[in-house]
Every structure is written in structure tokens, then in C-alpha cells.
């Protein structure tokens, strides 16, 4: 089996007295969709920040494409093909949708004309083609999430880190977004997604890692994870798994 595109190896992150991430390891296979799930505050976004260069791990290494990228700054990692979206969308507020995406397109296109044209193409791929000349701040939540995605895609990444890109969307918006993500993976982009919406995780992810209190407590296919009592406990509390099986026995 080939080496995974991304290998997070025993990473820990300490903030003063708080150990946010505790010897967490996970991998992402090239071209696959991997999900990182877990209750709020488990450390998922912290891990994303570390992988994308916004934070340095207190311990552990990150391997990407076979090389150690630990500690490199975000802009360098972007050039090497790692893109991320932010949990709370971070649009360039004073710019239009097109101009927002163009900033990403410029990475491999020095000329303004080329970047703007490429931005249009990316916008259409995520169904933002109609909003190109609107100010980014005038977008709805769903629009902003698409913009966040579009900008990340504009830098033509090999590894795409999606941080709760479905959060805040209503069910039909979620249904619309899912094929977009599937299409991205089909084009060969490796996707790692942090997600709370289980429907999406179940149908999109091929590999799931569960993070709780900074530690990886389970990994496997979505099916394995759903049945894993440790996962149930992490989300629903101590004894929940037992109560559920007891309930099933009675019902």
C-alpha cells in the first residue's frame, strides 16, 4: 500500500496548561475523503491549524507527500498544495466574490486577466457563477460557505481541509453541497473534512477518525464508527452505549 498523502504522527498541542491535542495520529489516503469527527472542543480545528501551518505542534510531526512539513508557515504549505477552509468564514469583506476567488487563483497565475478568468471557472464549479460581482458580505451563509470552498479550490490543492463546511446550512443546502464535495474528490483531490452532520459523514467519507478530548479514540469506516460504543460515549456521555443496548434489548 502506498504511503498516505497526509500522515499526522503523534501530534500534541499544549496551550499553557491546556493539552488541546494529545498524541493524535491520523492519515489521509490520496484521492479519498477522510472525516475527522468528535464532540465540540475535541481539538479538531486545532489539528487543522497545525496541518495547515497556522500553529506548530508541541510534539509530533506532519508528513505530506512523503516529506516532513512540520512547522512550515501557511503560505508555503498553500504553495505545496494544502488548502483549508475556516470554520467561521473569512471572506475578504470589501471585495466581490470574483475578486475573493481571484486571490487564490493568482497563486499560479501572475496575470490579473488569467486569475479573474480562472476565478469565474471555479465559481461556476461551486454554483456561485451568478454572484460573481456581488460584494462578498452580501452573500447568505450558504453562499459564504461556497465562497470559502471556492477560494480554497482556486489554489488548485492536492489536499483540501474542510472545517465544518456544512455547518449552518439547512437540509436542502446540505444536500446540494454534498455532490460538490464528492466531485472534488473524484477529480483526485484528497479531502479531509471536520463535520458534525452525520448524514454527510456517512455518505461521503471512506475513512473516519474520532477525536475526543484531544485523543483519537476510534478509526474505521463510517459503518464501524457508528456502532463503536466508545464513539457513542464520547458524544452522549458515560454509560450511554450501555443504556442504548439495554434500551434495544427491552424495545
Amino acid at each position: 500500500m502506498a504511503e498516505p498523502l497526509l500522515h499526522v504522527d503523534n501530534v500534541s498541542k499544549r496551550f499553557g496548561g491546556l493539552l488541546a491535542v494529545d498524541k493524535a495520529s491520523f492519515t489521509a489516503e490520496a484521492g479519498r475523503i477522510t472525516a475527522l469527527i468528535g464532540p465540540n472542543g475535541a481539538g479538531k480545528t486545532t489539528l487543522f491549524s497545525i496541518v495547515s501551518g497556522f500553529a506548530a505542534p508541541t510534539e509530533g510531526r506532519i508528513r505530506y507527500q512523503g516529506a516532513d512539513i512540520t512547522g512550515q508557515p501557511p503560505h508555503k504549505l498553500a504553495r505545496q498544495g494544502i488548502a483549508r477552509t475556516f470554520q467561521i468564514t473569512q471572506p475578504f469583506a470589501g471585495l466581490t466574490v470574483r475578486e475573493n476567488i481571484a486571490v487564490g487563483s493568482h497563486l499560479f497565475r501572475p496575470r490579473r486577466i488569467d486569475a479573474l478568468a480562472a476565478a469565474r471557472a471555479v465559481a461556476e464549479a461551486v454554483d456561485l457563477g451568478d454572484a460573481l460581482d456581488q460584494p462578498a458580505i452580501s452573500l447568505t451563509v450558504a453562499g459564504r460557505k461556497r465562497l470559502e470552498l471556492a477560494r480554497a479550490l482556486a489554489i488548485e490543492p492536492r489536499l483540501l481541509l474542510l472545517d465544518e463546511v456544512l455547518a449552518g446550512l439547512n437540509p436542502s443546502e446540505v444536500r446540494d453541497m454534498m455532490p460538490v464535495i464528492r466531485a472534488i474528490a473524484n477529480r483526485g483531490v484528497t479531502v479531509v473534512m471536520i463535520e458534525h452532520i452525520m448524514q454527510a459523514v456517512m455518505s461521503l467519507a471512506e475513512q473516519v477518525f474520532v477525536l475526543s478530548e484531544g485523543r483519537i479514540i476510534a478509526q474505521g469506516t463510517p459503518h464501524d464508527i457508528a456502532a463503536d460504543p466508545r464513539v457513542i460515549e464520547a458524544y452522549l456521555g458515560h454509560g450511554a452505549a450501555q443504556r442504548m443496548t439495554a434500551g434495544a434489548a427491552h424495545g
Partner: protein
Amino acid sequence: MKGVSPILVVIALLALVPIVTTSPVVLNFLVTTLMIALVGQGWNLLGGYGGQYSFGHAAFFGTGAYATAILQLRYGVNAWLGFAAAIAAGALVGAIIGAMSFRAGLKGSYFALVTLAFAEVLRIVASVAPVTGAGVGLLIKLDLRPEAFQFQSRLPFYFIALALVAASLIVVRLIEDSRFGAYLVAVRENEEAAKALGVNVVVVKFTAMSVSAAITAAGGGFYAQYFLFVDSGIAYGPWISIEALLAPIIGGAGTVFGPLLGALVVKVLGEIAKLLTGDAPGLDLIIYGGVLILVVAFAPRGIAGLIVSVRGVFQKARDTAALERSRG
């Protein structure tokens, strides 16, 4: 505003002014206005487009002024070469301050503070150092020949100032339409998001600061040739730091013509102040400070922003009228 043509039109119109009048008073007013427009355009690149507000642009203005004065007085360097050196010196100082500040991660108020401090250090040093004439200042020797960048009448100065402003407008316009410009504006809007898209924020800020400093230093070098006198208060004083930011803020920060529009307003206000009080120190700055607060409070996008808003209102009215017509 697409393309360079609006700039050429405006410059051409301004170039025709001497046909209407060659009054020294009017020309002097216009020359000093253009000088502030130049200095302000420098600030505008770093502050308006880049979002990094410097409160010490005097550091570059003064360096430009002193550089050319010292080179001419002490080393007999040709005035035009001195002017070129002034721009280079300004860029160098900008690069040094920028490198130190941005690598230390200073932004917002901290950046404003440190630029203020640098300007003040330079002012104090210039007020005591012999090379800058200490408390007395430097007088460039009168030599009214074009080779010495001095002229009998104000008219050549006017055209040179106009050319310099034109150059600064074109430079900013070209930047606006380039990758560097897109990155600069992205840094202003959201640094973290920019980083995630591959923008090297420190390098972008540093580059903007160096170019900004060069443009402002050109204004300083020109000042030295026009007035032939420089001292520490003129070169590095708060007055020029304030005018450098006031012009673009009034006219519209982050727009090509903002500094020019704003410089006009600033100079007009200055003349009003002089009319009211003669030469009493302080009144013009009081007015500037008050106007700054008013502009931020009521027209944060400056005159250019107001024009856009008014256009928007008219456009809406036209659209509504068209809608009515199509219904009726």
C-alpha cells in the same frame, strides 16, 4: 476606473491650467497641493490599499528632503542625481522600518505607534546632528538654472510636480491591476485568509512600505528644491505625517485619485486657516484634526466613496424608473 486613460485625461486638464492663469499665487497653491498629493499617494499605497496605517510618514518625507540637500551641500552632487538619491534613500528607510516592524508582527495600533516613534527619533536626531544643520537647518544654495533643479519661475516646478503626481497615479493604477495589488488588498481585508491562499504577508507589507516610502520621499526631495530650506521640524515633523494621511482619507483611501482630491481639500482648508489667523501656529492643524474626525465619522470612504454612493443612488433611481416603465 479601468485603465490609465482617466489619469491621462486629468493630468492633461491640469496641464492646461497655465493657459488660463500664470499667477504665482495660484501656481504656488497648485504646486504645494500636488506635493501633498504625491506624499499622500505614498501613504495611500501602504494605508489605503494595504490597510497598514502609518502615523510617521514624515520619516520618508524628511529623509528625501535631507538626502538631496545634504548631497548637494556637502558633496556637490548634481541636484537631479540628488533627487534620485532622495527617492532611493526614502525607499531604504522604508525597507528598514518595514522589515523590523513586519517581521516583529506589528499591526494596527502597534504599527502606528512604532512608525510615530521612528519619525520622532529621526526628528530629534536631525535637530541635533551637525550634518542636518542641527537647530538651524539646511539652506540649499540659490542657483536658478534648470541643471540645478531650480527655476526662475514657478511654471517648470508646476509641470515637474504634475509629472511626478502623474507617475505616482500610474504606478498605483498598475499595482491595482496586478497580482501584488490583489495580494495587498487581501492582506488589508483578512491576513489569515490571505496566508491560507499562499500570500506571503510579511513580504507583501514590506514591499508596499518600500514603494510607499519611495513615493513619499520623492515629495520630500521636491520640497527641498522648491523651498530650498529644510529643518528637522519641516522634514520630520508631525505636520507632514498628518497631511500624508489626511489627504488620502479625505479623498478616499484605497483609490487612485483619492490623495489628489484630498490634497486639494487639505490645502484649501489650510488657506482658510491662514486667512482667519494669519500665521498663528496651530489653527491649521486644529482644522485638520477636526476634519479627520468628521470624515471618519460621516464619510469613511472619503470623497471618492461619496461619489460612488451618489452614483449608486442615481442608478437605483434609473433602475426604478425603468421598472415602472416596463410595468406601465
